């Protein structure tokens, strides 16, 4: 296995962990934010360093230089490959952006130590390929949101029940997988079904989605964003389900995801609370990613991995825009017009740009990925695949409807300045730049995701000739646009 030139992975995980310990002793929330910004910024630098190092090496997978954790665990614990290499800087950037844009009104409600702890766990999970390591870290990642709910005095049962069920089914399923002889071949139903249910719960597939709107509604919105937007459920699906499940199981979860995508897109349209609206919109997008992941054809998988990145980015920006509006206006009721455009045109712009990027509007980073998913799905499910376009249409309507509700419809009269501040402006410009640059020059991203998809298909022991011959090429439609 190739080695990175520096221990980027271990540093990216240990720096926020250290930061969490340091911040837990700080009482001044202003200082805590500045320190959190420093630690998450350093983690971002390390994650970006890892990505650059890995890209320059042209390796299929690599581990750290100093093997500190390898020494502790006895085998390589933190390893990156084509799939996870860009996920780390993306996740680190999400955390950095959320910390950076936390407004003064939210300082007391948002826990920076928990945010950094969550960052360390998520980065560790995304750079871990050991199944039990992924399972344990997925479980640990649910702890900070749970603590946040408790600290705010909000009901925790809905979240706790779902996460406990997720862990139970995950442990049960993987125990059976191991008893049947490890991964990389199709397993029996008794092993696969618990894993399938676990992934459905974690991804918020209908009818297991109740925890997601509940979390967005009750936890601090920043915490909910950090837990959701890295799309770690997709990582669980790829690492644990894809390698062990027969094709019909993957098709089943794909069909369930399709239904979920349309159902939650419809639900997003009728929501009156902005957080619940965000939750349903998010489920719809993450379901579309799952649809592509479970179709298991090169085109759909490449599309899904591209949309994974674009959705994570776009939904983070979208969530940050809602969070910034909340910081100025309190909880946002979408059944009323707020007319905030004249005070925060840049925020309105970010809201629109990220919303449109999330639905794959042409020229934005999500466009090509969405096209590839639709192509791949139609090849596998010729009739049901059309449903993806309905979900995308509904999501697009929901985004613009929310835009009109929040930013237009009346003249908002404010006696205090509500315009966008420096750190928010930085986030707006950074996100918008990535969305447009990624949209206008998609080749590098799509190519890297294509390589990742081929690696995944090889890991699944899929004969690509067979896939092409039996599926896509047979329909003469492997997307030669």
């Amino acid at each position: 296995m190739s080695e990175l030139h520096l221990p980027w992975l271990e540093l990216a995980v240990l720096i926020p962990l250290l930061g969490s310990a340091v911040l837990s002793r700080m009482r001044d929330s202003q200082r805590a934010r500045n320190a959190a910004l420093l630690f998450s910024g350093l983690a971002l630098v390390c994650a970006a360093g890892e990505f650059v190092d890995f890209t320059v090496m042209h390796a299929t997978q690599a581990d750290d230089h100093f093997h500190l954790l390898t020494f502790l665990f006895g085998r390589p614990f933190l390893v990156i490959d084509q799939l996870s290499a860009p996920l780390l800087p993306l996740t680190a950037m999400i955390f950095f952006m959320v910390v950076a844009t936390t407004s003064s009104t939210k300082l007391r409600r948002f826990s920076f130590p928990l945010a950094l702890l969550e960052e360390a766990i998520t980065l560790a999970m995304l750079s871990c390929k050991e199944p039990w390591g992924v399972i344990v870290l997925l479980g640990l990642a649910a702890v900070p949101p749970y603590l946040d709910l408790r600290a705010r005095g909000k009901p925790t049962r809905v979240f706790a029940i779902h996460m406990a069920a997720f862990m139970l089914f995950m442990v049960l399923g993987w125990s059976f997988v191991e008893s049947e002889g490890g991964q990389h071949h199709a397993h029996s139903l008794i092993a696969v079904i618990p894993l399938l249910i676990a992934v459905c719960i974690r991804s918020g597939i209908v009818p297991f989605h109740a925890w997601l709107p509940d979390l967005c509604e009750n936890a601090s919105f920043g915490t909910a964003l950090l837990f959701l937007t890295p799309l770690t459920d997709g990582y669980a699906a790829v690492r644990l389900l894809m390698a062990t499940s027969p094709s019909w199981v993957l098709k089943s979860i794909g069909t369930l995801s399709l239904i979920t995508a349309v159902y939650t897109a419809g639900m997003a349209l009728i929501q009156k609370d902005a957080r619940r609206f965000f939750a349903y919109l998010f489920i719809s997008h993450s379901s579309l990613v799952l649809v592509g992941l479970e179709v298991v054809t090169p085109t759909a998988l490449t599309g899904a991995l591209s949309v994974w990145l674009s959705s994570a980015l776009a939904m983070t920006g979208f969530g940050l825009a809602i969070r910034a509006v909340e910081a100025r206006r309190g909880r946002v009721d979408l059944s009323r017009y707020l007319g905030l455009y004249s005070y925060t045109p840049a925020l309105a712009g970010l809201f629109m740009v990220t919303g449109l990027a999330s639905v794959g509007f042409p020229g934005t980073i999500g466009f090509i990925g969405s096209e590839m998913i639709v192509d791949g799905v139609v090849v596998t499910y010729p009739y049901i695949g059309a449903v993806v376009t309905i979900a995308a249409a509904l999501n697009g309507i929901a985004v613009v409807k929310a835009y009109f509700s929040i930013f237009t419809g009346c003249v908002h009269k404010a006696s205090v300045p509500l315009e966008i501040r420096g750190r928010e402006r930085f986030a707006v410009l950074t996100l918008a730049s990535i969305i447009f640059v990624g949209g206008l020059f998609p080749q590098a991203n799509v190519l890297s995701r294509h390589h990742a998809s081929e690696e995944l298909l090889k890991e699944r022991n899929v004969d690509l000739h067979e896939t092409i011959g039996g599926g896509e090429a047979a329909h003469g439609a492997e997307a030669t646009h």
Partner: protein
Amino acid sequence: MNPSHLFGLIIIAAPLVMLAILGISAVSRKRPLTETAIGRIVQIGIITGFLASLGMLAYMLVTGTRHVPLYLGDWVHVHSGFGSDYHFSIKFLFDRLSIPFVILTFVICGTVGAFANRYMHREPGFGRFFFLYAMFVAGMIITATSGTIETLFTGWELVGLSSALLVAFFHERVMPCRNGLRVWTVYRFADAALLLASVVLHHLHGHGDFDQFLSELPWPAGVTALPPNWILLVGGLLLIAAAGKSALLPFSGWLPRAMEGPTPSSAVFYGALSVHLGAFLLLRMSPLLDQSPLLCVLIVLLGLLTAAFGAFAGRVQTDVKSALSFAALTQVGLIVAEIGVGLRYIALIHIIGHACLRTLQFIRAPSMLYDLRNIENALGQRLAAEHSEAAPTKAPAWVYRLALERGYMDALLDAWIAGPFVRFFSACQALETRWTKWLAGPDAGAPSCPTSNAPLEDLL
């Protein structure tokens, strides 16, 4: 470089550069562009594109070329080594259909741009208006010159978004926002139909290049290689897309609503260009229509019904923009019917003539009312109203009501589609709430979502 390629590049690049400059300047808070600078950028962009399109026309006439493809390479190209390639080509096409449409776009957008420069003077959203205007021009040019269905879809979406946001331009009022959302909703479903048609084409034929599946014969000639039984499906989806964009039945309800936008955008969108985009799509796909008589019959019927509806509802409209929009709808219906019976060149000439006339009417309408009042003030009396024969005086009241309510088109869509949709999902919402409450247990207490919407300054 071949001169045709140079002209083609300038035609495509001019509106895109204009859009980029206006977009980037919009995010600059310290030194936003002045009205004069914006006007100058628009002027340069439109004139450059217009001159290049004239150059392309001259090149085609002189050399006798009827078909100039401009292939800019693959935007995305993925090769897996297993015969499973993914291409997204950027290709533009200049022929007897696209060149007239491009010239029409530049002429009308240039005229309306110059008009809007004065009309929108000192409006708070001057920069926003011209940014959306530039997006529209770019969308129109991309759509008109697209050589693949994906490129066409890209331009189609840009036109849709700019239309909806311009309808809601006066966004400090509720009605423009509601109407903008209505327009966007119809457009999204039309876009979904176009995307589906594109995907089905890939599924059947392997690519979305017009030269490949409509043959390289210059427009309007061309032969489609699709299986006959699938032509009706693809054609039907394209017809839905065209109906949504051109406000054909049953989507006509959004057209008068779109008049909430500023007059210049109403003129360029709903009098001249955007409203003809559906007809343009049918013209571009006309080799497909030739293969299916049933599809042609459907198109003729839809066109005639729309024309009749436009004439019927337009006769009782009480404001000039609505009356003009229904008049435009009548003509668009006739154009679609002409396409259905195979009169492709007649339809193209009809589009050009109608777009020019309607633009003039739209941008003259506000000043004409102003002039009329001035004349009446000077005379000191009302001008004698000529007896209008627009609507028969002996028609029953319900006929007037039907026309005034625009055939209850919106009400029917609300009752049959929006209503059941909202009721179904509201019922699901109620079920979910009960389920979540049950899971949360009896100690969950009061609703967790604070309903206070007090603005920050009230809380302080």
